C-alpha cells in the first residue's frame, strides 16, 4: 500500500515538474480554464437574478454544485489525465506497452501518465468560488473538500470505464468524449428540473446524482447515511473500473509503436 502511494507521489511530482518547465503555458492554461468556469457562474448569476428560486435551489446551491464538480473533475482529469479522452488514444495507439513492461501497478501508471494542466484551473476554481460565494465555516469547508475528493474518485472511475471500451471497439474516442461530457453537463444543473425517470438514469447510468446532487444536499443538511451512500458508491464504481480495465487489458494487443519517453 505504501509502495503504491510512493509510486503515485513520484509520478505526480515528475509530471508537475515537467509541466512547470513551461511556466507561462502552465499558468495561462490553468487561469483561462478558471475564467471559463467563472463565465458559467456569471450565466447562473444572471439567471438567478431574474428567477431567484428554481425548485428550491438558489444561486448558492448552483455555485456549490459547480464548485464540487469543478474541484472533483479538476482533481480527476488534472492528475489522472488518462481518465480523460487521452486515455482512449493511449490504448488505441498501442502506448500501453510501456506501462505493461514495468513492474508497477499498470492501471495506476496508465492513469497517472498524463497531467492535464487546464484541469488544474478547475481544481483551483472549485474551492475558491465556494469560499467566496458561500462563505462556509471550517466544518462545511472540510465536508466540501471530502465530497470533492469522492466526486474525483467517481470521475476517474467513470472515465476509466468508458475509456476501456477502446479495448473492445477500437477508436471509441467520440463515445468516451460524449459520455464524459454528459456526466459533467448533468452534474452542473439543479436536479429539480429533471423528471423522476431522468433522475434514476442520473444515479445509475450517468452518476451525476452521486457527483453533485447528493453532495449539495449534504452541504445544505448533513446526513451521515447520505454521506455513507456517496462514499459507498465511489468505492463501488472504483472497483468496477478496476475490474473493467483489467478485463479489457486481456484483449490488448501491442501496436509496436516506438515512443520516445523523456
Amino acid at each position, binding site marked *: 500500500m505504501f509502495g503504491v502511494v510512493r509510486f503515485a507521489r513520484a509520478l505526480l511530482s515528475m509530471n508537475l515538474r515537467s509541466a512547470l518547465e513551461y511556466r507561462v503555458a502552465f499558468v495561462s492554461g490553468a487561469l483561462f480554464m478558471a475564467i471559463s468556469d467563472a*463565465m458559467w457562474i456569471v450565466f447562473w448569476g444572471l439567471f438567478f437574478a431574474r428567477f431567484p428560486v428554481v425548485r428550491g435551489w438558489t444561486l448558492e446551491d448552483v455555485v456549490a454544485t459547480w464548485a464540487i464538480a469543478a474541484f472533483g473533475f479538476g482533481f480527476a482529469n488534472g492528475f489522472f489525465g488518462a481518465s480523460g479522452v487521452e486515455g482512449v488514444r493511449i490504448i488505441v495507439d498501442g502506448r500501453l506497452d510501456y506501462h505493461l513492461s514495468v513492474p508497477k501497478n499498470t492501471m495506476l501508471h496508465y492513469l497517472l501518465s498524463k497531467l492535464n494542466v487546464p484541469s488544474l484551473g478547475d481544481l483551483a476554481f472549485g474551492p475558491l468560488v465556494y469560499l467566496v460565494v458561500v462563505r462556509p465555516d471550517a466544518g462545511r469547508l472540510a465536508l466540501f473538500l471530502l465530497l470533492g475528493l469522492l466526486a474525483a474518485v467517481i470521475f476517474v472511475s467513470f472515465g476509466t470505464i468508458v475509456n476501456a471500451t477502446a479495448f473492445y471497439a477500437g477508436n471509441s474516442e467520440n463515445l468516451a468524449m460524449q459520455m464524459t461530457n454528459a456526466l459533467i*453537463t448533468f452534474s452542473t444543473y439543479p436536479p429539480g428540473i429533471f423528471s423522476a425517470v431522468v433522475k434514476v438514469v442520473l444515479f445509475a447510468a450517468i452518476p451525476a446524482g452521486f457527483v453533485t446532487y447528493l453532495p449539495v444536499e449534504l452541504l445544505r443538511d448533513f446526513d451521515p447515511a447520505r454521506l455513507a451512500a456517496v462514499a459507498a458508491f465511489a468505492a463501488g464504481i472504483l472497483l468496477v473500473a478496476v475490474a473493467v480495465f483489467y478485463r479489457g487489458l486481456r484483449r490488448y494487443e501491442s501496436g509496436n509503436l516506438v515512443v520516445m519517453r523523456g
Partner: protein
Amino acid sequence: MADPSTVALPSPRRGVSAVLPRQWRKYVAAFRVALMAQLAYPGEVLMRSVFLLLILFIFSSLWRTTYGEMGRTTVGGFTFTQMLWYVAMTEVLILSRGRTSITIADEVRTGDFAYTLTRPFNFLLYRYAEAMGDRAVRLALNFGIASLLALLFTGGVGLDPAGAAPALLLAWAAVTLDFLLVLCVQLLAFWTEDTTAFQFIYDRLLMILGGMLLPISLFPDALAAVARALPFAAIINGPAQTAVAFHAGDLPVVALRLLLWLAAGVVVASALFRIGVRRVNANGG
C-alpha cells in the same frame, strides 16, 4: 509536332465558375472543396448532434420548470416554445464553426504559413471561402437536427415565418463576422505563437455577452445595453432572435450594427495580416 485538329480543347466551364471572372474561380473552388470535405464525413456531424441533444434536453427541462414556477406564458418576450427554439438557433450558429478557422495559428507557429504566401491567391479571401464551405454544411445539418430536437421537446415550431429570410441573411453576415474575429485572434500568433488562451476568452465572451444561453432581453438593463453594442450579440442574439421573434422595427438597427462590425473586422484583420506577414521568418531546408 502535334496535329492541331487532334488537340483536345479545354472543356467548357459550367455552373457558377462559368459566369465568374477568372480571378474569383479559385475561391469558388476552395468553397466547393471544403463543402465536399464536410459531406464526406457525415459521422462526425452526427456525433456532434449528440451534444445538441444533451444541451436542448437540459435547457428544455430548465425553461419548462422556470416557466411553470413563474406561472407565466411569456418571459422576456419569449414563450417557452420560442425560448427553446432560440437556444436551438444559437447552438446552430455556435456549433457551425469548424476547425479550418482555428488552424491558422498552428500554420504560423509551424512555418507552414510561409508556403501559403507563395501561392497566387489572396490569403484572407481564400481562408474565408474555405471556412464558409465548411460552415455551410454544418449550418444546414445543425439546423435540421436542432429543429427536430426543438420540435420534439416543445411540440411546436418556434420560428417566425416573417423572420425567416432576414434571419438567413443575418446568419450569413454573422458567421462572416465570427470568421473575421476568429481570424484576428488567430493572426495574433505572429506575435504570441500560442493563441489558445485568446481563443478561449473570445468563445466565452461570445457565450455570455452574445446571449447564447440566455437572451439579452433577460439581462439587467445596463448589461443588456453594453451587450447589444458589442459584436458578440450581433453574431448570436441578432440572428437567433430574428428567427424566433421577428420585429421589423428592430431589423435596421440589428443589420446596421452587424454591417459596422463587419467593416471593422475587415479593416482590423487586413491590418493584422499586413503587419504580421512582415514578421514571418521562413527557415530553409
